């Protein structure tokens, strides 16, 4: 073991605690100076008061500790929320749009936000900045001119440039479309709040709050470093997934109270699907907890560090199950029957509009983001650097590598998993409700039980108290990984030679497509 597990340069919790202690002292002294007495009514205008913490009388200690804890928790909540929302609004939603565009090769007007500023081919949206009084807009004009020169399109044919896929041109560092979400949010905020005439108004108003608030609460249990978390109860995994299970109730409330057949159908589908997939999900999480020997998220993460192996290499099946069930839980393609646009207008949130819709949308992505972060925590070492034990041994490089804050690793891992979610969305078609449910109950549930059994076996027979047995704890994960890889390859090249070798064009009888099989 190269380093202690709780080693992290970014000890935000520690900093906040230290900071609030100082504030605490300031507040206390100002209170004392004002009233001349402390809260117990004793005169405290003595020289000893300069060291406030040593002189706090017994009767107020509890109060000040509670105050201190509240301030720390509040500050940490704000910090975590800021981290999540900033990276969600900017990185995640941007990834969703840009990556899906590339995966589906539909990169249409990707520069629509940019063109007003940067323009193309030296032409911008008119010199509107010159209309500002006192020449105030002139610097803006220079900026636009500069951007235009540096990042304007580069085809020799103007019209080609306009029609072509314009994300090829320009420069990456302007991140075209990055602030679209801010614009969307502004739009939502200016929209009217409407409730359908015959909706169950109380429930209708309550449902988004249930969904959004329960989603935000999950974030409190996600650590972004050994010292960056809002709350760390003993059973934080249990707590997080209990909270995770509230949102489906809100979804059903929303679907029922909208008094709309599409919303109701979406709500019913959502209820059925989420119930079906919550069970394998919880079994999988339980397997992770069994494997790591703890129901505490931070302990699960640190266990992967101290044992030297990511849980992914021990439970690849669990990772697969977790991914599938999470895709279903957050209602993304191919499991997005609750909001199937093709048949139910927008599913259970058809009737919502304005900022309530925007927040529901945001909370959906928050759930996806939480799922990605949990995936990183459960299976990929969380805030620890990849191969920390191996690279940490390298003389100079190791120190620098381990000095990278855990926050960066968590976010990077989560973003990669989100990219995988987007990839899945691009690759698979939406499947039928009965297929979803059949897949959930008949395949995922037994598989998750098998997975749980595997975890028990591994924990009981191969765990030696520190790591995973022989060969520095690498033999067992290596064997498991090899077996899984072999299975994957076999399944990937599975073609049935009994089937028709090749389709042919009806008239010419020429072979259709590029596919070749056997001696064709």
């Amino acid at each position, binding site marked *: 073991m190269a380093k202690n597990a709780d080693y992290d340069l970014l000890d935000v919790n520690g900093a906040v605690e230290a900071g609030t202690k100082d504030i605490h002292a300031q507040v206390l002294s100002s209170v004392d100076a004002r009233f001349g007495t402390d809260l117990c009514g004793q005169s405290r205008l003595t020289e000893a008061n300069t060291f406030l913490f040593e002189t706090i009388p017994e009767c107020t200690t509890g109060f000040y500790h509670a105050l201190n804890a509240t301030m720390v928790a509040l500050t940490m909540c704000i910090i975590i929320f800021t981290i999540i929302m900033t990276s969600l609004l900017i990185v995640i939603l941007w990834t969703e749009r840009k*990556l899906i565009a*590339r*995966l*589906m*090769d539909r*990169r249409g007007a990707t520069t629509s936000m940019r*063109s*007003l500023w940067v*323009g*193309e*081919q030296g*032409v*911008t*949206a*008119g*010199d*509107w900045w010159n*209309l*500002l009084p006192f020449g105030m807009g002139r610097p803006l004009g220079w900026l636009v001119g500069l951007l235009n020169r540096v990042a304007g399109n580069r*085809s*020799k*044919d*103007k*019209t*080609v*440039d*306009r*029609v*072509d*896929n314009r*994300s*090829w041109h320009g420069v990456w560092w302007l991140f075209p479309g990055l602030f679209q979400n801010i614009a969307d949010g502004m739009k939502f905020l200016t929209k009217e709040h409407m409730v359908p005439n015959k909706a169950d108004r109380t429930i209708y108003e309550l449902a988004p709050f249930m969904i959004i608030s329960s989603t935000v609460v999950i974030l409190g249990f996600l650590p972004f470093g050994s010292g960056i978390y809002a709350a760390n109860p003993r059973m934080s995994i249990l707590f997080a997934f209990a909270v995770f299970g509230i949102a489906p109730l809100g979804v059903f409330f929303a679907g029922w109270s909208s008094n709309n057949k599409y919303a109701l159908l979406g709500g019913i589908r959502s209820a059925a699907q989420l119930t079906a997939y919550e069970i394998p999900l919880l079994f999988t999480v339980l397997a992770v907890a069994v494997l790591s020997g703890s129901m505490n998220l931070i302990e699960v993460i640190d266990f992967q560090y101290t044992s030297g192996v990511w849980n992914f290499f021990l439970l690849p099946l669990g990772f697969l199950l977790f991914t599938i069930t999470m895709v279903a839980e957050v209602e993304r393609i191919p499991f997005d029957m609750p909001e199937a646009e093709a048949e139910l207008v927008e599913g259970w949130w058809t009737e919502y509009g304005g900022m309530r819709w925007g927040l529901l949308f945001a909370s959906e992505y928050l759930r996806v983001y939480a799922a990605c972060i949990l995936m990183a925590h459960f299976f990929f070492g969380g805030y620890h650097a990849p191969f920390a034990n191996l690279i940490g041994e390298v003389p100079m490089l190791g120190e620098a590598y381990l000095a990278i804050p855990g926050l960066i690793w968590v976010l990077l891992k989560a973003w990669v998993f989100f990219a995988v979610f987007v*990839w*899945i969305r*691009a*690759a*698979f078609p939406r499947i039928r409700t009965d297929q979803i449910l059949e897949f959930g109950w008949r395949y995922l549930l037994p598989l998750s039980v098998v997975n749980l059994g595997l975890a028990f076996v591994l924990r009981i027979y191969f765990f030696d108290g520190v790591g995973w047995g022989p060969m520095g704890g690498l033999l067992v994960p290596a064997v498991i990984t090899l077996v899984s890889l072999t299975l994957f390859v076999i*399944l*990937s*090249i*599975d*073609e*049935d030679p009994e*089937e*028709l*070798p090749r*389709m042919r064009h009806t008239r010419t009888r020429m072979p259709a497509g590029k*596919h070749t*099989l056997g001696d064709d």
Partner: protein
Amino acid sequence: MASHPHAKPNFRNLVVRPMWMTLKTALRTYPVIGRWFTDGYHNKLEGEMLDEKSLLRVEDNPYNTVSDHEYTADREATDLYPSLYRPVTVMYPYERLEDMEPWLFVPGEYNGRIGVIWETCTACKLCVTICPNDCLHMTTELRVDVLDGAEGEHAGFGKGLEVGGWAAVPIEEGMQANESYDLVTAHEGPSADYRFGEVIDLEGDTALVRWNDTGYEASVETAELLAADDQIVSGRIDIGRCMFCGLCMEACDFTSFFMTNEYDGMSGFTRQDLWYDADRTRVLTSRHQEAVDAELAKRAKKERDKRARKAAKLAAEA
């Protein structure tokens, strides 16, 4: 039942292949990596245009005014928020969309207003015959013949002035006014550019001409006069009956008949306004100068041969 091997619902076809295909698609969108996965359609750094015409249209040179317009209309809206409340309504017919957003041009294949190169028309009436709505009418017109107005190598092959024929004098004001005349957007015909009159008598360098507009007779220098002809082929088109099917264009064997891509200027306050005479269908010769030149050369050659034969005949008789 036998089926395509990719139709079998196994792990390979349901999961691995879709993931691999989308990954390839995504990689193709990055030229550097995507080169290795290219299928000959993606990742071409040069845009592909369909034909030469379209390429010309988008060409980037100082003379190309087609695509050299502002990105959006450079108009003022409110002084306070010029960028936020930019007007987006195009005030047609005072403004035209393709003037402001030139990339939204009307494609050349669009069947718009009828245009005829009257100089190359042979009056075969194929277009009149095929028109299902009977909107085309062949007439004759009093005009200066192309050969009579020709300069350079084809000059002098015109019919020339003769007694009982027609003569014309250019009207400077009308010529100047027509220089700024835009056939594309005009709702009326162009100004008169020639003053016509009947040649009553020819005496040396002067001709006695009875002007058509005033009816007075006047003696004019023959050098000032151009020969004109009242049998020059012309036509009238009732654009109000036209359904823009383009059959006339397809019927024309002499590439004289066109459907332009112009949608403008075909309106009026009376039905009479929708009767277009030849002036309002005449395609700018500069756009089809080659065809006009070829026709001119053909006619000049015909005239030259005729004169040569006549001269040979006269020589033989002598």
